[in-house]
């Protein structure tokens, strides 16, 4: 019971973190149809900007300024890069963001060096929030969860309750019509891309000190973010949220289970040859690759994703 409760808590925490990482990507995809390969790079930029700002003026200004800076960088990337690539089609867009990820990583090397930087949790948030069966739960994790849920609510409200959100939605499906109504569609796209990257930046500000701020951090989360977005259904915010929680919990609980593949097959009535390498694997060992398995399975059986509207 105790273990289950703690695992559930861990799963939800992790899931919310994943959502924080992927919400910006989902936003960009649902609005512009662009799968931004460099999304995690903006996450990394957020962490580094926050590190730099917090080393000058402290964490709290950084929390506000760093995402805005990242958003500005993102908007510039859209304006001067993606928009040009767009003319050559979706493959060119994907390739552009793919190349961008390379460049961002190298620029980070160039500016901040190749080792982890000392980006710390602010003293106000350092400590234990509550203790559940003598396992402590840090304040910072609670803060992360709060921001993540806040993001969901704010995004949802923005898209469905505000005028700008409605225009954005319309610009996606009927860009010519929206343009004819006097709205500047390219600018809307630029804002959306800037907004999406700013969300990634915010995730970086918060994730950077909870984990480690180093040049490899983008590559480390890059692929899991895609998994979330694909499993949730490309472009579905709700889907991304559900997928994040699902993957968070699957991963946490599979770590907790110490049964081997042999046992799993035995449940299904199949006995594996003892001593083979597959038979020795445990579910725990597989935990971190389960999301990828889930993604492949989803793509085969339900290509729209859990809650996606469009197919590809």
């Amino acid at each position, binding site marked *: 019971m105790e273990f289950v409760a703690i695992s559930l808590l861990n799963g939800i925490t*992790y899931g919310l973190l994943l959502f924080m990482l992927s919400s910006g990507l989902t936003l960009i995809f649902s609005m512009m149809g662009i799968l931004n390969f460099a999304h995690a790079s903006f996450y990394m930029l957020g962490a580094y900007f926050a590190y730099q700002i917090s080393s000058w003026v402290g964490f709290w200004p950084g929390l506000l300024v760093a995402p805005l800076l990242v958003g500005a960088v993102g908007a510039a990337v859209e304006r001067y890069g993606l928009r040009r690539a767009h003319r050559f089609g979706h493959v060119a867009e994907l390739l552009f963001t793919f190349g961008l990820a390379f460049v961002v990583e190298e620029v980070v090397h160039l500016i901040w060096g190749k*080792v982890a930087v000392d980006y710390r949790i602010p003293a106000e948030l350092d400590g234990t929030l509550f203790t559940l069966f003598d396992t*402590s739960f840090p304040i910072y994790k609670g803060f992360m969860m709060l921001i993540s849920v806040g993001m969901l609510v704010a995004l949802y409200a923005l898209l469905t309750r505000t005028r700008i959100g409605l225009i954005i939605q319309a610009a996606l499906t009927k860009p010519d019509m929206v343009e004819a109504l006097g709205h500047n569609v390219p600018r809307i796209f630029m804002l959306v891309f800037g907004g999406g990257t700013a969300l990634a930046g915010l995730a970086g500000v918060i994730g950077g000190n909870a984990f480690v701020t180093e040049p490899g951090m983008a590559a480390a989360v890059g692929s899991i973010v895609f998994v979330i977005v694909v499993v949730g259904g490309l472009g579905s915010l709700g889907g991304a949220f559900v997928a994040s929680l699902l993957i968070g919990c699957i991963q946490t609980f599979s770590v*907790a289970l110490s049964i081997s593949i042999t046992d799993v097959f035995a449940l299904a009535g199949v006995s594996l040859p003892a001593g083979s390498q597959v038979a020795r694997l445990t579910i725990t060992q597989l935990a*971190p690759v389960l999301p990828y398995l889930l993604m492949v399975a989803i793509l085969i059986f339900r290509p729209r994703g859990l809650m996606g509207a469009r197919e590809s």
Partner: protein
Amino acid sequence: MKSPFLNRLALAASVMLIGGSALAQVKIAYIDPLSGPFANVGEAGLKGFKEAAEILVNQKGGIMGQKLEINGFDNKGSPQETQLQLKAAIDQGYRFVTLGNGSGAAHSLIDAVNKWNARNPDKTVLFFNYAAVDPTLTNEKCSFWHFRFDANTEMKMEAISNFMEKDKTIKKLFIIGQDYAHGHQVAKYTKEMLAAKRKDIKIVGEDLHPIGRVKDFAPYIAKIKASGADTVMTGNWGNDLSLLIKAAKDAGLKARFFTYYAGGLGTPQAMGAAGENLVLQLTEWHMNVPTKNTEKFALDFNKKYPGVWFYYLRVNNMVEMVAKAMNTAKSTDPKAVALALEDMRFQNDTGEVWMRKSDHQAMQPLYISIFSKADGKTVKHDSEGTGYGWKTLATISQRDSQLPTSCIMERP
């Protein structure tokens, strides 16, 4: 269609020519990642080598009057690229190569060197390994042309288990590691050695996780906590280690972590306060081992290269031992140098380093230390500016980490 190709090759050839016009120097090619994700470790190593060559050899008269020069070759961490860079180095007249990062690259290099030497007996090449710790390199795959200056995984475990044997507070042990060869080896040796030395230690859990893919270690920590372990053994390095420690701190886990690589470049900084009194490491040296010369060397080094922290005493050992071997043999022929290195006993300021002849594995004193708050006394120096440094808990003598080898060496 082929003309840009030819131009490029001409360019390549000219680059080689410039590089190839070497003076009367003894040159060692440092083949390690100098770009890409592991470049930080590779660059730090190269700086260490250059500094050691300058201070410990060249300023003391060099090698038979010649200067020792160590130059970097970027293998980008790839085993294939390692072989290309080996060829490049050989073309430029290098007869000595050194490599430390990545067992894949090390295996690739030892194979390539063996084959090259068999196929080109007049242009042999010698491989000095300063950090690749796969035991097979000095056992099944041992080679006359390979010398290792770092203790291998098995020896390190032998040292750690000898320490555990005496520490009766250890009752329940949990093993966690990265799911690849090194992690598997650590888990295997831990179980084997403890079964022989401390039957009463209960192994309460064993987990492997894919390397570099775990973002949140909280579930693993929950499991360790649920198992009631008081001690954790891990071979993790880099982020997999820092994140593990951070998660342990967050969840308030009160177990000690025995590690191989907690002192590795960047890790103390990434762990920060989370590691205090929680993390132990096994090394051949650390800043708070009272060694006058090395301490000064390290302080000078850290001052000279801000952001890079002196870590590899074995690099100094290697450079000095190689120079000594060349001076004794009065030759820079790889075979002669190899013969002079065999069975060499070298005094550094932690004790004696012995290069065992049977498998070309260096034996040296090792230290188990714990990450503690720097106090200016026993913990005189902090690590990477964190305010925490390493405090020696035990010294393992050279003899206590020795293990038999299965090496059957083919000698030329």
